[in-house]
């Protein structure tokens, strides 16, 4: 049987299975057998899509030119690992990956521990509908299993692959990001089920928590990988450009971050339920919007691919159907969730509400900035840009406010004012953070952005430390007793500690590496040098080299500090004949916790001179490390055991203070 036929057959089987999942999940029959059936169907659907994905991947490994998709996107000369990752480096293949993750989450929803109740059945039904929609989209408009046309000339080799995509960062960036985007579908499905049943409370919060945390952590990592890739591959030393597609990944992240804090409030206090439901719909809606943005050609971006209006319309339809349907359901049922419980503003839940609102404002701002150029072009025909200056101006004060609220929320207990014990430490943190950042900014001659970034980082770090001190009973406890108390802190709380610490480091690294970066640009010939931050960089000579599927021209630079050679750098320019594309490979070397970043280009009429750009990005490794910590905290919390049942957990526990 041909690969094309087998793949299509497996996807058709998956359609049947997802249909079964939807029907068993959504028929109005309260029977455990239906729940079991939906679960079995979800597993069948996952296996069928896994099979299809495996077939496509092996076709890529073998450069099987009988598939049009392989012919258009691969080449036999590519290294094996990039042949494999090339499976998802195109529109059709990436959709199949999307489907695979969607079905995997469907199966995980069915087989996750916990009660196999009505909520789970309906959630599986919704997840089935989602899978079905994307399967139809794939098979009808974007199947990777289309055969190479019989009437075309016999292919000699594939048409290669964008060399920019032949890169380890980009090989793992899409799968990680997709786990994040698509993981939010599970949260969405459980929320729809809860709305249908009119019961969105503690049980719902406990069910969605692991899915949400896992998806959020993956999304964090995926965004971080994208930033890292942009940093070393695009060649001008930036890591975040407020590009529409970056924004498309940031929007679900912001919504999910707000949501996971809101879910905690529902779990503890059973308030804010309608807001939580709305956020869950917004978060997945933002994921769908991102999928639409990347593939519709509506925005210009480095990341955009498959700019095809027909596919765009189909995707827009799916987004509108599920997001719109979710909101209609919310409008009908959300009101019933309102519960006028006693709500103390000066409490942890109060702080979480405030932070949620700040996240919502930032989300709205990013949304407005991303779509404003489109609105302007459609309404008045003028083309405008909304770039980093706009977003930085809006986001930096919000980030500072969020950090102040975060520290406050960490110090203050749930429900009660906590007898004012939070006041003194908070005053110290707030005063110390705002003043400390001022001094730091003044000494380093930084800008207002430097101030806000530093202040935010110090406030968060201060909050984390004060929180840990309180957990350990410090000051007051003996070191041994303090350690013992820290040992009994729940793993989920450690997750929060890791993520918040990571966030502080991320802010610190982002501020230092962008506000305090040094840049030197010069045109120099062999033997000449430029200097940057006390380093002298001398251009020595030009070397030629070749890789498996490219030829390259390298330049050798010697880096000297105080006259002593400390490093040799080889920035290069590659040419990929198969794709007829050239790339610039920068040379990066760690310099303390920062990087020395060197790019060299040759130009018309320059002879053997080079246009050299050197950057020093201080503390950029703190940024990467912080991002990893944020994600790690999410994974830790996702797999941490749930709290004991609330009735017992509410009783004063061994920890004394609320965790």
């Amino acid at each position, binding site marked *: 049987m041909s690969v094309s036929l087998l793949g299509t057959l497996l996807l058709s089987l998956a359609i049947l299975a997802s249909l079964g999942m939807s029907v068993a999940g959504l028929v109005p029959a309260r029977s455990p057998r239906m729940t079991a059936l939906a679960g079995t169907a979800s597993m069948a659907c996952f296996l069928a899509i896994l099979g299809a994905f495996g077939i496509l991947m092996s076709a890529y490994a073998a450069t099987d030119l009988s598939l049009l998709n392989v012919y258009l996107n691969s080449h036999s000369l590519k290294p094996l690992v990039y042949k494999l990752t090339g499976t998802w480096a195109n529109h059709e293949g990436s959709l199949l990956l999307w489907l695979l993750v969607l079905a995997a989450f469907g199966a995980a929803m069915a087989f996750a521990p916990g009660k196999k109740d009505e909520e789970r059945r309906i959630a599986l039904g919704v997840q089935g509908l989602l899978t079905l929609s994307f399967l139809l989209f794939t098979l009808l408009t974007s199947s990777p299993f289309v055969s190479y046309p019989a009437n075309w000339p016999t292919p000699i080799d594939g048409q290669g692959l964008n060399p920019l995509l032949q890169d380890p960062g980009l090989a793992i960036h899409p799968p990680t990001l997709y786990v994040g985007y698509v993981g939010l579908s599970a949260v969405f499905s459980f929320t729809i089920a809860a709305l249908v049943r009119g019961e969105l409370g503690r049980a719902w919060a406990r069910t969605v928590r692991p899915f949400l945390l896992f998806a959020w952590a993956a999304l964090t990592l995926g965004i971080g990988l994208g930033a890292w890739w942009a940093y070393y591959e695009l060649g*001008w*030393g*930036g890591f975040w*450009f*407020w*590009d529409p597609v970056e924004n498309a990944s940031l929007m679900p992240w912001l919504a999910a971050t707000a949501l996971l804090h809101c879910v905690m409030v529902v779990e503890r206090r059973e*308030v804010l339920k309608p807001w939580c439901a709305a956020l869950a719909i917004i978060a997945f809606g933002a994921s769908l919007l991102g999928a639409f943005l990347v593939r519709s050609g509506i925005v*210009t*971006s*480095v990341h955009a691919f498959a700019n095809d209006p027909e596919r765009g319309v189909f995707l827009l339809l799916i987004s509108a159907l599920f997001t719109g349907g979710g909101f209609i359901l919310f409008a009908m049922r959300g009101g019933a969730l309102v519960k*006028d*419980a*006693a*709500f*103390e*503003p000066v409490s942890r839940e*109060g702080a979480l*509400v*405030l932070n949620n*609102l*700040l996240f*919502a*404002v930032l989300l*709205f*701002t990013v949304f*407005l*900035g991303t779509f*404003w150029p489109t609105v*302007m072009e459609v309404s*008045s025909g*003028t*083309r*405008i*840009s*909304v*770039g*980093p*200056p*706009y977003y930085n*101006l*809006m986001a930096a004060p919000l980030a500072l406010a969020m950090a102040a609220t975060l520290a406050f929320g960490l110090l203050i207990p749930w429900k009660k004012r906590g007898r004012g014990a939070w006041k003194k430490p908070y005053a110290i943190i707030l005063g110390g953070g705002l003043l400390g950042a001022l001094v730091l900014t003044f000494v380093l001659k930084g800008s207002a952005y430097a101030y806000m970034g530093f202040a935010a980082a110090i406030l968060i770090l201060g909050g984390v430390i004060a929180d840990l001190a309180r957990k350990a009973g410090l000051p007051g406890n003996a070191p041994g007793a303090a350690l013992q108390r820290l040992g009994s802190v729940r793993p989920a709380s450690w997750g929060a500690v890791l993520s918040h610490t990571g966030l502080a480091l991320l802010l610190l690294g982002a501020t230092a590496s962008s506000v305090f970066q040094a840049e030197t640009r010069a*045109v120099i010939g062999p033997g000449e040098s430029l200097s940057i931050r006390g380093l002298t960089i001398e251009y020595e000579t030009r070397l030629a080299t070749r890789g498996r599927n490219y030829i390259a021209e390298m330049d050798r630079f010697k880096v000297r500090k105080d006259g002593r050679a400390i490093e040799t750098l080889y920035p290069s320019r590659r040419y990929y004949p198969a794709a007829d594309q050239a790339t610039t490979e920068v040379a990066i070397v760690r310099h303390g916790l920062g990087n020395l970043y060197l790019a060299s*280009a040759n*130009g*018309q*009429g*320059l002879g053997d*001179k080079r*246009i050299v*750009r050197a950057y020093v990005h201080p503390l950029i490794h703190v940024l990467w490390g912080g991002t990893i910590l944020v994600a790690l905290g999410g994974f830790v919390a996702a797999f941490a055991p749930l709290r004991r049942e609330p009735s017992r957990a509410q009783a004063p526990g061994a920890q004394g203070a609320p965790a």
Partner: protein
Amino acid sequence: MILPALLFLAASLAPQEQARADAIAEDIRCLVCQNQSVAESEAELAKVMRALIEERVAAGDSDDEVRRYLTDRYGQEVLLRPAVSAGNALLWAGPIIALCAAALWAFSLFRRGAKAR
């Protein structure tokens, strides 16, 4: 077409003026690149635009005059920081309106909570 080498040699501004030109260039979009400012890009057009900015700065233009010079030639799209104008009112006011709405909502929530208590 001006040679890039010439452009590099032509730049002979006082350090202070050069810093001003660089700051302007940071917020000017390179139209042939995707989401890069002309300060960051090595594209030919970006070099030309950098040279134009330096030329205008050398001629004594204010920052706004330089920007107007560029938008007259290349359109509003070159401004990475969109103009504060009537047309963009919602873009600039939107976040502030959202913040006010959020504050109102929080206030009503806290009041409702206080009543229930």
